[in-house]
């Protein structure tokens, strides 16, 4: 399916990307990797491994100290930063819904800042897309649950029909049931809209279950680059194996419990 490149999401390429902070701390160290058009990729690693920093160089919330990022062959700094960001859907853990705007206004904000007036139909469409009742349009964010809020965040990110979706721990603050539901919903959206999706997560099980390819980061470098199947088969190397061992062990114990019943 990703081979059918008609209207699929763009490729994203990192070329020797390094992010060094004043004072010498290095968050990302010369990362070079290309993410294929239409793929769903996870950046997995422990806290401080540099995965969020690397992700944010795509929409320039972080500017690299060295190297460059290309989207569909175009360097990200070729255009005005706000124009770039309007073409990229961005979802993050704290959602950041605007508390003074209604759900509909939040979803339509990307259209509004782009000068588009007629947004009612599009908002309805997006509420349907993320499985929220249409009458949520008039509510304010503080009347929603955490999962509902992140669904609004997803709708907001997709409002301008971006072909590239980047997500920073998108389900980090949600309960396991909601987490699972939203993960599956995102995977379905990715397939339906033929997006390129890059997701940062520290949850290896989540990454294994919904993505096509997993990049494992440690101390600012990519230490494993593998498909989920490959990782399970032990092709990712020692660091990746350590991360995979946790869900594998959990699964084993669950099966043992089931056998006892």
């Amino acid at each position, binding site marked *: 399916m990703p081979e059918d490149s008609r209207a699929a999401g763009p490729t994203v390429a990192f070329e020797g990307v390094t992010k060094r902070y004043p004072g010498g701390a290095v968050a990302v160290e010369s990362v070079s990797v290309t993410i294929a058009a239409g793929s769903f990729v996870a950046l997995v690693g422990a806290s401080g491994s540099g995965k969020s920093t690397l992700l944010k160089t795509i*929409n320039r919330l972080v500017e690299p100290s060295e190297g460059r990022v290309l989207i569909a062959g175009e360097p990200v700094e070729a255009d005005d930063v*706000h124009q770039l*960001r309007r*073409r990229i859907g*961005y979802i993050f853990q*704290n959602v950041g819904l605007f508390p003074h705007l209604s759900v509909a206004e939040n979803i339509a904000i990307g259209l509004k*800042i782009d000068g588009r007036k007629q947004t009612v139909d599009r908002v309805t469409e997006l509420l349907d897309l993320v499985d929220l009742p249409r009458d949520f349009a008039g509510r304010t964010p503080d009347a929603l649950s955490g999962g509902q809020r992140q669904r609004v965040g997803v709708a907001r990110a997709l409002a301008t029909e971006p072909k590239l979706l980047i997500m920073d721990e998108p389900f980090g603050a949600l309960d396991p049931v909601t987490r699972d539901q939203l993960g599956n919903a995102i995977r379905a959206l990715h397939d339906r809209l033929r997006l390129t999706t890059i997701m940062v997560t520290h949850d290896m099980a989540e990454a294994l279950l919904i993505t096509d390819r997993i990049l494992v980061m440690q101390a600012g470098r990519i230490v494993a680059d593998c498909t989920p199947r490959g990782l399970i088969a032990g092709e990712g190397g020692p660091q990746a194996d350590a991360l995979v061992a946790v869900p594998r062990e959990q699964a084993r114990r669950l099966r043992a419990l089931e056998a006892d019943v």
Partner: protein
Amino acid sequence: MNSPFLDAMARVPDLLAAHVLLAASALVLGLVISLPLAIWSARRPLVARAALGFASLIQTIPSLALLALFYPLLLSLSAMVGGGIPALGFLPSLLALTLYALLPILRNGVTGLTSLDPAIIEAADGVGMTKWQKLLLVEAPLVSPVLMAGIRTAAVWTIGAATLSTTVGQPSLGDMIFAGLQTQNWALVLAGCVTAAGLALTVDALLGVVEHGIAGRKRVRTFMALGVLILGVLLAMAPMLPGKQKSVVVGAKGFSEQYILARLIGHRLERAGYRVTYREGLGSAVVFGALASGDIDVYVDYSGTIWTNEMKRQDVPRRGAIVKGISAWADSRHEIRLLGALGFENAYAFAMQDSKARQLGIRTLDDLVAQAPALSFGSDLEFLERPEWAAVKRAYPLSFKSAQAYNPTFMYRAIESGRADVISAFSSDGRIAAQKLTVLRDPKGAIPGYDAILLIDPEHARDARFINALAPLVGHIPVALMREANYMVDRDKDKASPEEAAKWLEARMAR
């Protein structure tokens, strides 16, 4: 009904209008300055530290002192650019009050902006807002409730501090408070206070409606409250509309005799066809400069004051020589015309209660020197800082047990109650005779003469109509008459207003 309070309320409309315009201008200017500064400060911690530090520093300066500071500042600025900047009146008041309004707006603005949820800012950036879109669509609406609270504080402070602009010659509700305090007309003080407080409460309440309207997204209420505020300012501007005939300004310092003389001068100028306005309660260090720069057109000063304070002379020649010297100096240095002496003197006079002076055997300042360490001294607010006091101390080494400065009215109360044993009285004061005070003689002639002299600004120095209107005052106010007029205003019972005393004085002079 003819209550003194209702009489006093009759002065309110004009002063209220001036007060509203001043406070509103200061608040608007404060907003224009502090809003961009708050945005800049929120982005740059270093700017925030500098801006908030400066605003806090300003806040520690007493508002009266801040107003007073702008006078020399503007005066020297005006001198630097070759004149034309008014150092008194609206401009210094506006600047001082604007500075005062900065802090609450700035502090709330910066606090509001820096304490916004970082996730919301990240989201605003993430969806691709430009800096302006972020400011207008996200930051401004989220900060505005906090900001409005700051604006309310600034409005209340500004309205309160605007009463002090009277001291730099800007009409405000303070005119009533200061004049009332001086002449012990409590109805006038009360009317001024009640109106100023009422104004502050009303504006605060309306801004409160705006604040809650913004927070609760109630557009109609917000705009209605803003509409009422704007309407109020427009109403206050109404008196400025009709044909702007240039008026002459009569100046007065802050005591009864000056209020009476200002009215006396004003009435004569009105009869000569001038439109007259008054700037009362000017500090004596400020008033001469105001005349020289044309902020006021005419006032009465006292020869000794000009001699020692403006001309910085330490010698003390005879009275006539001082007046002549001032006349020549004022003309050559400032093109100010000294029209003449009015005929009475209002000198500093050390006074004691008659009984006490006799009991201690004090008749002269020489006698006082030995007994001073056991006595307390009450002076008016400026005497202890004046060169006359230095001159007196050079001639008589006086060292009192304590020295306390009072508002003149309270100075006389202090000697009556025994809290002060010696006061720096004024020789034309009706209360010297009424309170049975003894004036101590000055055998060494340390205190210069204080003939009341009529001074006219450069613009009218050769204006025949102006001069002719005032010339009959020269030499025609004997000290007995002035004392009696002063006492009419200063006494505790059956008080007359300065206006009434001026009319009485006119009638007596005509005889």
